[in-house]
């Protein structure tokens, strides 16, 4: 028991007195809205008050403990943020490699401490800029990368052995990671000196983000290849960033984000154990996570704390990891794009600041703060600077980083953390019963759960049961125009010209041989990474590599569930 019996008895007596008072007051002055509407943005009911009785069943050593100790609810680092703040890592990429490289250098100059790459849709889907499928998309939502030449331009002047780089890339992750490795080798930096992250989480693509290429089974196999290669040769690299961000943006609740993300993580662990026969403690510490921080402040803090505890328990008890570092859940957080509004866009600065503070109080290791204009376009220089400054203000002015896990012990926060953990385990066990996540995805289970939640939320917004300021309350007729970053259509023409020139000058025989070798490796079930690195060095393109995968493993089409 978490509290002495005497305290609980006192609490119970005083609570009854308070409840009587509440009844008396509410009879005269009713609450502003009925009971069910006092709930989180995810519709989790919240009580008027939380007391010691709500957390009386907790076990201090097993459930809370200390930073750097199981179950890590209070953080992985024993010194908290005093030794080092979270990494200020702004997701950025637009137009061509040169433009993005300039933005990166601007961000590093302004105090950013890690890089994060946004690719355009053709790159994300494994198509080159000259593919008919890429028409109209080149450089629009991120940077266009076709070959190692573009990539060398992207990382020009970036100290690859000092700054870590994250790449949001999924189906073509092997090709882009191979480019990073090749670029390092060309610059004479050994692979064991580079650090960073590839997102490389295909399960959440099928569930939510929908950058799709091959069916689930071979997709997971390619991911296990990267885990194995990283474990052996690139030990500072996080080979998967198991992501809830996109699950949430697709409309899930906070509990669904928590549950589906962690169950995805378990699926990868099980595949690597089964397929590669690696020891759990050899790779578990390189698995990283990525969460959304939405607008409901306490729900997000509770979610992040619960996530660490669930993962620690799963790694220790379910997968029998022995090294405590395998029990750590390290994660990046991004504030919620879907919480921002096109109406009265300057309000987005306030939303982002609140969400960023929740991420910090939840103990994130890395953070992206959205720019106020991201609901309309890619961020302009000025907007991205405000977003970065938001993190710096939280870190250095607010005092939020002074003490570790400051909300621990709060009756409310601990009770909410427990409740979210419990609901997440229910989902995890349900998916276990379906035969795992790949099988649940094939049944459409997570996809339809998310659609239910998204539709319900939209109905609640339309009915003013949930509020978005500027959208369904305090609507302003006055439109505030904001500066708008537009990616010129000429980016496409220039990028295609660059690719054509590369294809003309490279040794096409050597490229073909590399791609044939890759194809054979795929057929034989060998690890594809060494073949990818050879191929990109010969200037094989992202699409040429992905076409091999499509040919050998087949193509997956969005079944269009709703």
């Amino acid at each position, binding site marked *: 028991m978490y509290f002495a019996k005497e305290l609980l008895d006192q609490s119970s007596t005083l609570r009854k007195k308070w409840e009587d008072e509440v009844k008396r007051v509410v009879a005269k002055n009713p609450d502003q809205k009925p009971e069910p509407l006092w709930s989180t943005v995810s519709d989790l009911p919240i009580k008027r008050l939380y007391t010691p009785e709500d957390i009386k069943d907790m076990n201090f050593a097993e459930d809370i403990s200390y930073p750097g100790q199981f179950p890590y609810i209070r953080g992985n680092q024993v010194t908290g943020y005093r030794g080092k703040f979270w990494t200020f890592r702004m997701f950025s990429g637009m137009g061509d490699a040169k433009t993005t490289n300039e933005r990166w250098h601007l961000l590093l100059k302004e105090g950013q401490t890690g890089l994060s790459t946004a690719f355009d849709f053709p790159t*994300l889907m494994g198509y080159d800029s000259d593919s008919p499928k890429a028409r109209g*998309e080149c450089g629009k*939502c991120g940077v266009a990368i076709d070959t190692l030449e573009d990539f060398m331009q992207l990382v020009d002047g970036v100290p690859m052995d000092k700054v870590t780089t994250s790449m949001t890339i999924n189906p073509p992750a092997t090709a882009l990671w191979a480019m990073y490795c090749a670029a390092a080798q060309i610059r004479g930096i050994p692979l064991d000196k580079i650090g960073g992250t590839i997102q490389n989480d295909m399960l959440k693509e099928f569930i939510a983000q929908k950058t*799709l290429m091959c069916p689930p089974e071979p997709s997971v196999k390619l991911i296990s290849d990267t885990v194995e290669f990283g474990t052996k040769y690139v030990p500072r690299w996080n080979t998967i960033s198991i992501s809830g961000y996109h699950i949430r943006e697709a409309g899930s609740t906070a509990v669904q984000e928590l549950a589906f993300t962690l169950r995805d993580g378990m699926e990868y662990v099980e595949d690597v154990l089964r397929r590669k026969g690696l020891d759990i403690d050899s790779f578990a510490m390189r698995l990283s996570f990525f969460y959304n921080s939405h607008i409901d402040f306490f729900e997000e803090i509770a979610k992040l704390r619960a996530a660490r505890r669930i993962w620690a328990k799963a790694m220790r008890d379910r997968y029998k990891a022995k090294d405590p570092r395998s029990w750590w859940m390290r994660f990046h957080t991004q504030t919620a794009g879907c919480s921002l509004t*096109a109406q009265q866009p300057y309000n987005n600065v306030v939303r982002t600041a609140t969400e960023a503070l929740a991420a910090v109080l939840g103990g994130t290791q890395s953070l992206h703060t959205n720019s106020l204009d991201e609901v309309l376009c890619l961020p302009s220089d000025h907007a991205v600077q405000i977003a970065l400054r938001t993190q710096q203000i939280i870190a250095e002015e607010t005092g939020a980083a002074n003490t570790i896990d400051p909300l621990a012990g709060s009756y409310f926060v601990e009770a909410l953390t427990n409740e979210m953990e419990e609901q997440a385990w229910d989902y995890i066990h349900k998916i276990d019963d379906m035969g795992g996540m790949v099988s649940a995805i094939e049944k459409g289970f997570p996809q339809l759960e998310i659609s239910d939640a998204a539709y319900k939320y939209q109905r609640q917004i339309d009915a003013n049961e949930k509020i978005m300021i500027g*959208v369904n309350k305090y609507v302003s007729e006055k439109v505030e125009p904001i500066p708008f970053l537009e990616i010129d*259509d000429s980016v496409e023409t220039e990028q295609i010209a660059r690719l054509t020139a590369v294809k003309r000058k490279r040794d096409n025989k050597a490229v073909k041989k590399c791609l044939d070798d890759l194809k054979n490796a795929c057929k034989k079930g060998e690890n594809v990474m060494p073949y990818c690195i050879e191929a990109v060095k010969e200037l094989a393109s992202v699409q040429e590599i992905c076409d091999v995968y499509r040919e050998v493993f087949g193509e997956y*089409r969005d079944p*269009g569930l*709703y």
Partner: protein
Amino acid sequence: MAQRRLRVMVAKPGLDGHDRGARVLSRCFRDAGYEVIYTGCHQTPEQIAAAAIQEDVDMVGLSCLSGAHRYLFPAVKKLLVEKGADDIVVVGGGIIPDQDFKLLYDAGITALFTPGTTLESIVEWINTNVKPR
């Protein structure tokens, strides 16, 4: 004779995977009593136009949040016109900056719905402006 139900296609052209709006609208249209065909993500304009004609729909709703609407929306409309289906109403939604509205209207897109639009107002617009062909 009772009018037949409206047949509505919700389509995701291009490589964009942001399908929350498309999924929510598909459900909303189903609840509004329309027959709904949702294409899923990553359809080419050619695939959308062909499917719209084959499914004999009254309206195509295109959703794009990647910035490629300037190319993709007009491409769908143009293909429908070329195939003699110029009476299929084409509307669009997503992240469409104000300055692109004129280009899209000029290309024959009848209406554009951007973030913040209520489901109810979209259904009301369709009930007023789209009739079974």
